[in-house]
């Protein structure tokens, strides 16, 4: 199971309603599925919490599949100022009923009045990295300096 902690900067990015959040998962037959999920946040324990609003959705099936078999899912967060973070984790808990679920059910209706909350997933983090281009460009230059077109290295005539 994961126990990776995330910085306050990333927590703020995830909890920012203006951020775009995309969740990638794999079905039981190995099909990829990538969809926006605006209801991804960070809970009090520093784990990802995500409200699944569609019971019959492919993501709901895939995240349950990941929970059952200890598989990872991936999330990408793009902030309003174009920073990008990739987070991977393993779903460890699904709430579909009970008093705790019912609190989230009412919270979901505050966010989206017609919603009918299907599940609340808790995802323990295994990997976190920034994917913003300037950050990745600097990492690439540091880690793989030979991956470069020679014209970029051409001297003055």
């Amino acid at each position, binding site marked *: 199971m994961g126990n990776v902690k995330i910085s306050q900067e990333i927590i703020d990015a995830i909890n920012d309603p203006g951020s775009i959040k995309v969740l990638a998962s794999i079905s039981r037959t190995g099909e990829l599925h990538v969809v926006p999920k605006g209801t991804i946040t960070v809970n009090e324990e520093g784990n990802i919490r995500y409200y699944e609003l569609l019971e019959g959705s492919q993501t709901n099936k895939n995240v*349950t599949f990941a929970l059952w078999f200890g598989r990872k899912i991936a999330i990408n967060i793009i902030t309003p100022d174009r920073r990008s973070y990739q987070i991977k984790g393993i779903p460890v808990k*699904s709430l*579909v*009923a*009970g008093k705790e679920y019912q609190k989230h059910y*009412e919270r979901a*209706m505050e966010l989206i009045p017609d919603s009918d909350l299907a599940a609340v997933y808790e995802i323990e983090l295994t990997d976190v990295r920034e994917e913003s281009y300037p950050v990745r460009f600097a990492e690439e230059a540091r880690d793989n300096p030979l991956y470069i077109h020679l014209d970029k290295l051409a001297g003055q005539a």
Partner: protein
Amino acid sequence: MSRNSENGWRSKELPYDQVIEKYPEIPPIVALKIDVSRRGIHYTQAALDRVDPDKHHVEPYNYMIGHGKNAAPIGLFLRDGSVICQGDTPDYSKAYRDPYTLDVVDGRLVLTDEEIGKVYEEVTFWDRPDFYDKKTSNGTPMCLVASARPQRITIAPQTKCHFWDTPGEGCKYCALFSAHRSKDDEGEIRDEKWFQDVEETTREALKEKGRYCSFHMTAGSTLSGAEIFDDEVDLYIKTLHAAEKAFKTEKFPVKLVASAFSKKQLQRMYDETAITTYTTDLEVLNPELFKWICPGKSRLVGYEEWKHRLYDAVEIFGRGNVDCGIVGGVETAQPNGFADEDEALAAVLAEAEEMGRHGVSFADCVWNALPGSMFVNQKTPSLEYYVKLALGLAEVRRKNGLKIYTDDYRRCGNHPNTDLARID
């Protein structure tokens, strides 16, 4: 010495850890649920001390069985949101296998196997329905009108199963409503006051936001009427009409588990009530064993006619909205059942495949030799058998393009094969 400590059952079958290794396609948590359902659960004092009757769902008696006993939890949540529909087994000395243990370890409520000394999963108790504390305007405690699982409300309009009226004709595995088996006992009285209680209890239950996804009705069979089951149909219709007053839509998710009604009776129920899905239980998918295990059903309806009525129901409710409940594993009951588990599985799945082609889905209950049933001293099959049965039935459903709705992991929760539909 108890029966299970003498018979050496652990050395005769694959344990849980080896079963999930051998069958990597079964989710370990579903296999655990099957094994717990098969073996039962014993609560330690530490676990019982965790029960808060003001917060947790405890029942002063078992609503579906009716024997008086102390208030105790009737089920548990697993961390995938699925449920185990079993309470404490205080005395398991006569059971073939010893049960799992519900204990408190490192402050967490967990399922363990005491002999192996291993903690398997953290669990939580179900929450108490809000309506349990209320009374109807007639003064009836609402917890006597309806019961609940975490996401379904259950009404049992009839607490007597009349197949028991003829000695020896009740289903041999069944403990439901076993408090009302004598010929003179008519079960609970359902007068006009009771129907009013149903309306008020349903209305009160719906005030709890986010709690219920399904309205469930089941009862013992009533054989009387111009046609067999006519009076049972009348009672369900009247009960549903009472509950319908609490809803603003004509149709809502209703799970009815009832006798095998004729096409005319089913059409009437579909046309006159909110009902959306229908389950009728053939129980054991083998005509000869049906005759032995369900003698009343066999004599008064018959295996082929029961099946035919399921097919008729598909014409009315649509493919995937009709389920056949089975008591998975009871086909191995002795002396007449299959002695070989592979032969039993092949026979059951072949029959399921034929019915699946006709649009019937399956709701597989794990057979547990319950006190109150005639099969109380039977030996139920191995975990490996139950896992293969759940996987096989899930494949039948997929192959025939069938959905599962009100018998699924959420609206019912008691069927391992339908839990598997969560990832289809």
